């Protein structure tokens, strides 16, 4: 599965101008000093599940309009980190967060921030497609309705637009009233993306969005990510090294709750600074 070096496909890693990257940090804990405008800024972030600490002083920034990948062995805290960005950890009992997560320089853990509105800005796509057992149309319209949109026309318009953005429109436009459960896995996942896009988020969090899908569906979603790139700030967790290298601009490597290394994807994959990173990427990892 995670064997990126040996099976390089024809798919080319997107070559993106790296917007003047300066240097990478030496220690995992050191504050990275990139000269992009960070959409998301994580400082000194630690997270505890009750007594167990799952994140250790993570410092990281994610640039606006680009894709950041989080990689690392299972259980290292990728999902946990991702969930801190839309405060989905709040619903887990006994979770404690210290440090700062700022979006557009506003700390999302401050009292002034309303969680529901935050989640409207920060959409999320889950590992397993999880459409509601409603019609395709209602799935996409759900977010609009809960945020108080009641104008039929504008709902229909947004649903169509979102489905088009998620590259699903052509496949489902004649069966919008059908139950979403009748779609294939790949279609369901794109529906979930459309559903997330419909509420107009600025950030999209994706936790292994293709791990439950076949290669074809995976490729379609990757193409889709490529298209969404400039309009959204995307953070994607993946176990698939190729995928990370193909779709992301930036990559963070995590290990046992620490952010070991963070930098431009090319750099991480071609010349990682840390031994751990290199071992993991080349598959020499335990």
């Amino acid at each position, binding site marked *: 599965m995670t064997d990126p070096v040996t099976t390089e496909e024809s798919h080319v890693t997107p070559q993106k101008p790296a917007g003047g990257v300066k240097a990478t940090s030496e220690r995992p804990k050191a504050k990275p000093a990139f000269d992009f405008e960070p959409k998301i800024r994580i400082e000194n972030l630690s997270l505890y599940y009750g007594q167990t600490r799952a994140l250790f002083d993570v410092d990281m920034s994610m640039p606006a309009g680009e894709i950041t990948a989080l990689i690392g062995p299972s259980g290292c805290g990728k999902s946990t980190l991702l969930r801190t960005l839309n405060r989905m950890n709040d619903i887990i009992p006994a979770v404690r967060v210290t440090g700062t997560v700022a979006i557009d320089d506003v700390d999302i853990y401050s009292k002034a921030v309303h969680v*529901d509105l935050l989640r409207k800005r920060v959409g999320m796509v889950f590992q*397993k497609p*999880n459409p509601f057992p409603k019609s395709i149309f209602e799935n996409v319209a759900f977010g609009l309705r809960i945020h108080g949109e009641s104008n039929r026309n504008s709902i229909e318009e947004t649903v169509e637009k979102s489905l088009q953005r998620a590259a699903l429109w052509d496949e489902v436009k004649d069966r919008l009233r059908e139950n979403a459960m009748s779609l294939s896995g790949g279609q369901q996942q794109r529906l979930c993306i459309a559903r997330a896009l419909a509420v107009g988020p600025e950030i999209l969090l994706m936790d292994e969005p293709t791990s439950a899908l076949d290669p074809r569906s995976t490729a379609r979603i990757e193409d889709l990510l490529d298209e969404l790139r400039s309009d959204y700030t995307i953070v994607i967790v993946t176990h698939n090294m190729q995928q990370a290298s193909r779709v992301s601009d930036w990559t963070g490597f995590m290990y046992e709750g620490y952010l070991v290394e963070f930098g431009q994807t090319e750099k991480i994959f071609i010349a990682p600074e840390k031994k751990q990173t290199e071992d993991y990427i080349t598959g020499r990892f335990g």
Partner: protein
Amino acid sequence: MSEKYILRARRNDRIARWIITAGGVAIIATVILILVLIVEVTLPLFLPVGAEPLAEVSLPAQLRHEDVLLLDADEYMRDGLVLTRGGRCVFFDLKTGTVKHTENLAEDASRGEALACSRVGAQQYCMRWSSGLVTIVTPDFGLSEAENHGVAKPYAVEELQSIPASVEPGEIATSVARYTDEGLVTRVDLLANNTFRVAQRSVSTDLMGNESVEAYESLIDGLPGGVSAYTLDTQGEWLYAGTADGQLIRWDLGNLGSPKLVGAHKATEDNVPVTALEMVFGDVSVAVGTGSGKLTTWFPVRKTPEAVTKQLAPIHDLAPHDSAVTSILTSRRNKSLVSLGKDGSIHLDYPTSEQHLLSLSRAERVVKTGYTARGDGILALTEANRICVWRIDNPHPEISLSTLFGKVWYEGYDAPEYTWQSSASTDDFEPKISLVPLLYGSIKGTFYAMLYAIPLALFGAVYTSHFAQGRIRNVIKSTVETMAAIPSVVIGFLAALWLAPIIERYTVTFLLGIMIVPVLIVIFVMLIQPLRQRPFLKQVEQGFEFVLMVPVVLLACTLSYMLAGPLEALLFGGDLKQWLFESAGQRYDQRNCVVISFALGFAVIPIIFTIAEDALSNVPNSLKAASLALGASRWQTVWRVVLPSASPGIFAGIIIGFGRAVGETMIVLMATGNTPVLDMSIFNGMRTLSANIAVEIPEAPLGGTLYRVLFLSAVILLVFTSILNTMAELIRQRLRSKYGLNN
């Protein structure tokens, strides 16, 4: 080895499949068997009356049909008897017609010949002799040695009363007589000049054993028409007469020596004569047969609610004959009656249910009929001097779908009603077996219970499954489990003896509380919404918000308690019960719907809660997460994602709870008062189908009408619940395909 292993696995598979299939089939078979057994018990209620021809014999002793005054049979349908014009009583074998014994009742020639004979009581006959004498006799059917523990019992006829005439025999047209155990003998003669002569003789014995006899005689004259038929009730207290121009007249003979005319009514159209009159068993109804073949029963009713006295009224119309009704005979078991038409057709009818049970006829005209006292045999004497005997199987004449589910006009009632009253202390009591009040009671009790249980159970389930935190959730769930484990007899007991008096005392407080508590909670929730982000409120742990409600609920309770007094004084003049009775005409039962609502609701809540909670928690977390991640609040998530997905389960919970409430017995038995009334008032009790079975089954004789009707209510309960379950399953399937998940 692997080969062997596979073989073994296959064999185990096969055995397991057999066992499972056998188990499944056994369960289905058991259910069907139970249903079949129950239905089998109820079936005889609806079977038609059976008439099995028993024998046909020639009149014994070369008698001719003109000689026969009366026909009857013994209670085993073994021997028959005829009373003859010659004053003889001939016992004969019903099967063969051979004469077993002949008793001469004329004794000596002074009695003359017997002119007429009618049945008085169970097996007593009133005979009028040409000398003017009236005797009341009873037959004694003989038994052989084998039949009577080694002692042969001879055939005999015992004379019970002998009442001489006080007028010239030539003046008497017809006579009837009755006597009571209290020593009152009544003889009524219709004289040739269309006058009744009433002779009453009362014999009383004082403590010393001295007899004193008081005799009264009176005349009733000036009758509105020629009397064509008349009869007395068994006590000799009421005299009924029908006239040739179709009137029905009633006198009260209760005041000895001074008969009182109570009323005269037009009984037929077109002045058709009344041709037959007979008291129906129970002495309340009188059956009237007319010259045009109409057959009706009458009894006294209060025509308007204000009326002081009851007036005779035609109540039940029975199947008419094609020709004049010549005689009516009644059973001494129930209200069945046999009528004979002039054309020889025999009808068996049941007045209360207005059912025509049977028609019998012979090729030769039937001129006389006999009807055994038990109502299990009909005898017919034809012009051809032959006697036909039928054994009648008529165990449940009072039951028909219309008496079970429709209004029935029972004796003593002023209008048709739905009534359940299965037994009383008297023998001639007619069971009233309308299932409507019971069905109504079941539905009423269930309705109020569900009114209380559904919201509480569902809110509780939603809260527990999606808002409460681990600790508190466990506490709630185990509490509810404990609730479910409480035996219903304990709930019923507490409800009846502890809750009911409290509610009776604080009725207004309770009713007020039911309104004030939810209103205050809603107001409080609305007020607190904007404050939710305040640091103070944030300290309240998620899932523990209910702690904030405690003072609100306490406040609401105190408020209702304090307001109750003034409110009761203001609206109900200080006493709700009195007010209810005076202005609404409602009684306040201590064991009423409010009590049942709490008690039955309490029993149903755990079921609904558990099933609904299960369904709600089984909604995959991924769906919840998807909704939350889109920015939906917890409440929006529950309302729009969790509830629809769990709706099949919630629905199932409600239906199963409903079924439990309908079938619940112990609680309603103890906490409802069990009065079968049709009344929607929440301050009344009720009697449910299930409680009724429990109440009545100990008193229901095996195979009797009540017994079978109780089984019928069991069938109704069973069918009701299975319809309910099927319906639930169908709706559930639909909901599932609409909102459900793939699995």
